[in-house]
């Protein structure tokens, strides 16, 4: 199977919020180990529901690996939940 890593890591994210088709654009995020990931492309953003809370899922890449980061719209916290393979 695909070698995705499943995580639940709290991260700090720099993002812009505006209007248009992509109202929220993550720019970069810092992982728990201090490593900073620059977002090169947002693959897809889709909302999911966790109970009554809406969580916005961003599939992004830094050009070397794919990441899934999630914004909890109620608590306004970000988590890194997946890291894709690097090959």
């Amino acid at each position, binding site marked *: *199977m*695909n070698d995705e890593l499943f995580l639940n890591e709290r991260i700090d994210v720099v993002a812009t919020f505006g209007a248009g*088709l992509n109202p929220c654009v993550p720019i970069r995020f810092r992982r728990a180990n201090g490593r900073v990931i620059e977002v090169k*492309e947002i*693959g*897809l953003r*889709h*909302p*999911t*529901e*966790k*109970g*009554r809370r809406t969580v916005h*899922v961003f*599939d992004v*890449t830094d050009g*070397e*690996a*794919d990441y899934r980061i999630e914004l909890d719209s109620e608590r306004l916290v970000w988590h890194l939940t997946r890291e*894709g*393979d*690097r090959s």
Partner: protein
Amino acid sequence: MGVNEHYNPEIPLVMHIDLNSCFATVEQQARPMLRGRPVAIVNRRTEHTMIVTASYEAKAQGVTLGMKLKDAKKICPGLVGIESDPAKYRFVYHKMMDIMSDYSAHVRMKSIDEGVIDFHEATDTMKRRGLIDIGFEIKQRLRDEIGCAMRCNVGIATNRFLAKTAASLHKPDGLDVIDCKNLRQTYGTLALTDLTGIAHRNEERLNAVGIMTPLHFLDADAQMLKSMVFKSINGYQWHQRLRGWEVDNVDYDLKTAGRQFVLDGYNMPYDQILKRLHHLCEATGKKIRSQGKIARGVLVWATTHKEPGTQKQTGRGGWEEQRGSRYWHARHMATMPFFSDQAIYAQAKHMFANAPPLIRTIGVSVYELSDDNDPQLSLFGDELARERHITSAVDEINDRYGKHVIHSADTLGTGHNVKEKIPFGSTRYL
């Protein structure tokens, strides 16, 4: 029924849009590192599972739908297997539907990855633009509003059948028009089984009367198709459909609802199977209630693993016959309609006591559905009312706080095993 012998001469006003290898494309959109690589979507994180969708890169190397992931990796070593993510596909489905609805009020989604726009009642301004122009605009909007890797096929014709046929002519990312002028020429490039609705059995029926190609089919007499090939009104309908006349613009009522599950273990203990069956009953109950229906019949079925000593069949029999396994089912029609999970499970469990050993797949479905408009009073009216109130309260809580927040203690822990999967076919539950 009036039969039109000539081809439909009107301007094509039906557009069929089909996302190319939908789930694989969406995954490649979401994960840019997967683009250009062979990708297969599967429903479980295991090598023994069946491929649901393959990307074009994988298909080019011989990977086909229904192949086991481990077998596919033998012919395509770089294949990346990804577990399906229904939330993502549902989001793309809704985006696609939003885009299509901008052009006409008559949009019908045929499944999670394809839909039809009927422009017959669209505004004159819209019609004047031309459907080819609109088709290219929809392709561009998919790329702009979902992502640059999204591709779709667009087919334009005078009826739904030809529009779907047109959408399958040049994959991926094609746009084709079929009208009365190029109808024969298009059929000339196709085989019978390329036509939607003609699989092997219908092909055999047609071959039996000397119809070997779509052009023979097109030239066949309506009466002959009705009385000798399809032996029903279907013959007339095919005669009209092939000529570009609309016969498929119909909505069907919900007749059955159900779920099935391939067990996550070999020779699983009976009590564990029952728990999963209970989970399926809860999912089925929720499905009919979400559509405002009540049921009167329950069907429970199972297929078994290949029994020792049985041989695989090489013929063109059903799935079970080919694998030396067995299909078992039982059904029960209740005197009173029901809607609750408990009522469905009680009947299913009772029937399941007779199921054979070595079960591989289980399924439950309910039938004889009707609208839930507070049926006639019965001697047990109070009990039914109480059950209705409890069920709707549980549904309301689950809708608000998340699926499966309140459920039977019996199904505790089965949610992880019996995950929600991609709903093929009907889009009622999306």
